């Protein structure tokens, strides 16, 4: 079972702390580029490692990234019914 307890998550977060972590503002600046790299199947750990690291630590930024990804992927979906011509 891979589910981590809260304290395990906390210990994981502490021991993996990096001195060069970026904050939420810097992550947000690069989030659009990061999302496009993900959609293009690129290696984000190589391209934008600090953004990836931040998203693994910050729940708010993570949530925004996941929502952005869905929004971007939806451009391939058909329009919603009310936008179809009558």
């Amino acid at each position, binding site marked *: 079972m891979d589910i981590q*307890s809260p304290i395990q998550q906390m210990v994981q977060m*502490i021991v993996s*702390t990096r001195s060069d972590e970026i904050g939420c503002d810097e992550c947000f600046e690069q989030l659009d580029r990061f999302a496009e790299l993900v959609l293009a199947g690129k290696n984000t750990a190589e391209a934008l490692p600090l953004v990836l690291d931040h998203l693994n630590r910050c729940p708010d930024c993570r949530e925004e990234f996941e929502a952005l990804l869905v929004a*971007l992927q939806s*451009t391939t979906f058909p329009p919603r019914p009310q*936008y179809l011509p009558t």
Partner: protein
Amino acid sequence: MNTKTGEEWCAQLSGLAPDAALEELRSLLLHGLHFALARYNVTESDLEDFVQDGLVKILKELSSYRGDASFTTWAQKVCVRVALTELRRRRWRDVSLDDLVTNSEMSDFTPEVLTDRSADPGQSAAVQMMMATVQRIIAEELTERQRTAMMAVMQGGMAMQEVAERMGTNRNALYKLLHDGRQRLQKRMMQEGMTPQEMLSMFEQG
């Protein structure tokens, strides 16, 4: 099919006749937000409000678009943040920090392994000792603000933006406060001879 370049978007939106570009962008953002927020409790009216507020922000910050990603991706990013910021406010509106930070020094954090009957009692004692050390280090190394923030975010699960507001700061500064706290704990753990591998392996079940 949208084939406008970023420059074209910016020029049209800031030009004398932005309506067509605005409507195209509005439609695109609304479509994206509809799917992005599908699992949240939002109404059609909410979505339209979020897009409208998003458009205001996009127009205001047009000059900050740098072309690192496509314009529509950048715009969608801005819009998603506007929407989620409001949704978090709603979600946590009636919750204070006191509601979350009920016990001091994270004394309630109990690893799953301690309640697991099949766990090796010897290992559990080692984990217990480690956790007692972690709790002591937290009490000794972190400031009151750091402990409060850590409790609210990690134990209480409150959104960073909401914790930040209640603590009179912003989300970016809160992240840095927590980062500083983690660095202090990490350094202290190493000083006490607790290596990362050792600590993490203590949680693994055989």
